[in-house]
């Protein structure tokens, strides 16, 4: 597999933001546990996790909207933990846009520039020019005089992004930026965000609970669960080598199969599988198999067997649910070739999978 061009470019890049052993507790519930993370300059990092995993809190702590109980935030090597939000030069995009309702689109975008002290404030003409450029960038030229209430959800979020970019932030922070949009707009905006990132090279962190979104957009994905960082890596790395069952389960469908590890291999029902067992792991283990790692075969070559419970077709693939004797249901993916009727007995061969120590 050719290495992804996205991953290569950022490999040796310097660290833009360092999160150092950050902990945060709200009321009595711990939200972040001793979390450390390096964000490289110019990368697009996806913070992925289920709701309640602490990803938004982490983003807000980086922005300075929340303060950590313990730990430090470093911007390019400088301690920024005590820096007020105004001086952090971050661009924050909220899930529900948070546009200023009473201001025109142009005034929204110019807000950060107009809020500067007189000495640092660009001239009126310069602000106008920059707003015009940003309107072009978000493909809303000519919308400057409109008000947020006259825009669609996708347009509003683009304005929010332009507003954040206007102050030339050192990092762009996006909190579930597409969460409030419908599926098609979401898809378009994703692609567009990726384009903008490739063009501007802006260091960007975005929070999402949508695996597809994170895997499609990110240079690197950081998977969070229950306030801990489970894994950081390129989308390929985390998919091919998940470090834990949590990461594996969160990145997509899988089935759990009882297996035995011995001699460096994993076997199921006495039959060897191509899955290698980690060194030193012996005895009963849980084998996690993705739907496309299961293959429908004749019973004599099978690791597992059962009867077809239901099947449906989508986009050239067939998804079949197979019920084992014990009532355990397995999901299998196959090409949309042979059709299986419910109740049809089938055998399944395991072509791959994951075990964790």
């Amino acid at each position, binding site marked *: 597999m050719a290495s992804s061009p996205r991953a290569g470019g950022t490999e040796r890049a310097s660290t833009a933001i360092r999160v150092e052993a950050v902990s945060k507790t709200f009321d009595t519930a711990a939200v972040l546990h001793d979390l450390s993370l390096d964000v490289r300059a110019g990368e697009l990092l996806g913070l992925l996790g289920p709701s309640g995993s602490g990803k938004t809190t982490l983003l807000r702590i980086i922005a300075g909207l929340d303060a950590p109980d313990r730990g430090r935030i470093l911007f390019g090597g400088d301690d920024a933990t005590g820096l007020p939000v105004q*001086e952090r030069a971050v661009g924050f995009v909220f899930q529900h846009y948070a546009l200023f309702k009473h201001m025109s689109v142009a005034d929204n975008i110019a807000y950060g520039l107009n809020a500067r002290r007189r000495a640092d404030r660009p001239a009126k003409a310069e602000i106008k020019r920059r707003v015009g450029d940003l309107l072009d960038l978000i493909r809303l030229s000519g919308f400057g005089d409109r008000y947020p209430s006259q825009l669609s959800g996708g347009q509003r979020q683009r304005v929010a992004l332009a507003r954040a970019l206007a102050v030339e932030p050192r990092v762009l922070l996006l909190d579930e930026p597409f969460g409030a949009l419908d599926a098609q707009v979401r898809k378009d905006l994703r692609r567009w965000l990726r384009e903008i990132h490739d063009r501007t090279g802006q260091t960007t962190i975005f929070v999402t609970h949508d695996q597809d979104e994170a895997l499609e957009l990110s240079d690197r994905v950081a998977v969070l669960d229950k306030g801990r960082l489970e894994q950081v890596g390129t989308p390929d790395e985390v998919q091919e080598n998940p470090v834990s069952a949590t990461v594996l389960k969160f990145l997509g469908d899988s089935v759990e199969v009882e297996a035995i590890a011995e001699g460096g291999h994993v076997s199921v029902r006495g039959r060897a599988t191509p899955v290698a067992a980690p060194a030193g792991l012996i005895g009963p283990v849980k084998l996690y198999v993705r739907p496309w790692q299961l293959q429908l075969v004749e019973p004599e070559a099978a690791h597992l067997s059962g009867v077809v419970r239901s099947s449906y077709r989508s986009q050239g693939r067939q998804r079949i649910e197979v019920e084992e004797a014990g009532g355990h249901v397995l999901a299998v993916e196959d090409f949309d070739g042979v059709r299986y009727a419910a109740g049809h007995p089938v055998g399944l061969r395991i072509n791959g999978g994951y075990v964790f120590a």
Partner: protein
Amino acid sequence: MSEIASPVRLPETRPVAATGEGTGVRVLLIGTAITFLALFLVLPLGAVFVQAFAHGVSAYLDAFREPDALSAIRLTLTVAAIAVPFNLVFGVAASWAIAKFEFPGKTFLITLIDLPFSVSPVVSGLIYVLIFGSQGLFGGWLLAHGVQVLFALPGIVLATIFVTFPFVARELIPLMQEQGSSEEEAALTLGASGWHAFRTVTLPNIRWGLLYSVLLCNARAMGEFGAVSVVSGHIRGLTNTMPLHVEILYNEYNFVASFAVASLLAALALVTLVVKSILEWRFSGELAASRRH
């Protein structure tokens, strides 16, 4: 299978609204409401103006050439000019604190803000007598230092502030809670100072709610009788506000003058009502009060 289904002819029907009452019922209900309003609201209001002009325009105007009447009007305006801004600042500060922050004792503070609405105005006045009266908590000490609170402007202002305390806060708290704080947070991340964010983001978002509540607060501040009556001492030309002046004139059978001053208060009420209705009609989306009721 010999039967052939014949087309069923449905009887023709006129659409009837789900809540369709007969015309008679409707007329009766509306008639009752209008009669009630006329009897209890329009008639008394009309009576005020009729009485005020009973001896002609010049007699009406004479009532305002009276120095005591002028002093009462001046005092009422002065009290409102102090009490309303005070409650405006307090109301905005309290709503901001309650809507945007979590802190211990928050629910208690909300209950406390509502207190003046549930306490009889006379009791509100008595509180200040107990505190600042010559036998009261601080009264002796204050008198010894030459500060007169009761039976003077400070007492009247304090009582008015107390009574009109909840108007601004009660309108703004739900409004600000609903709006949340992400717009302010957005402003802060864009480099705005807290004050700049308040001025350019928060204030424009609450402007109509603020105007609405200030209007009601002002109407109450100018019209308050009970609490002010207790602390004022009714000194003519000195500590009589307009409502107190109306009562004194009335007790002296000086009906024309009494109703003339009362007509000013009634006019204030009418103006308030009109502006309030315009605000509700024009900016209902930006008022918390119009959604609560």
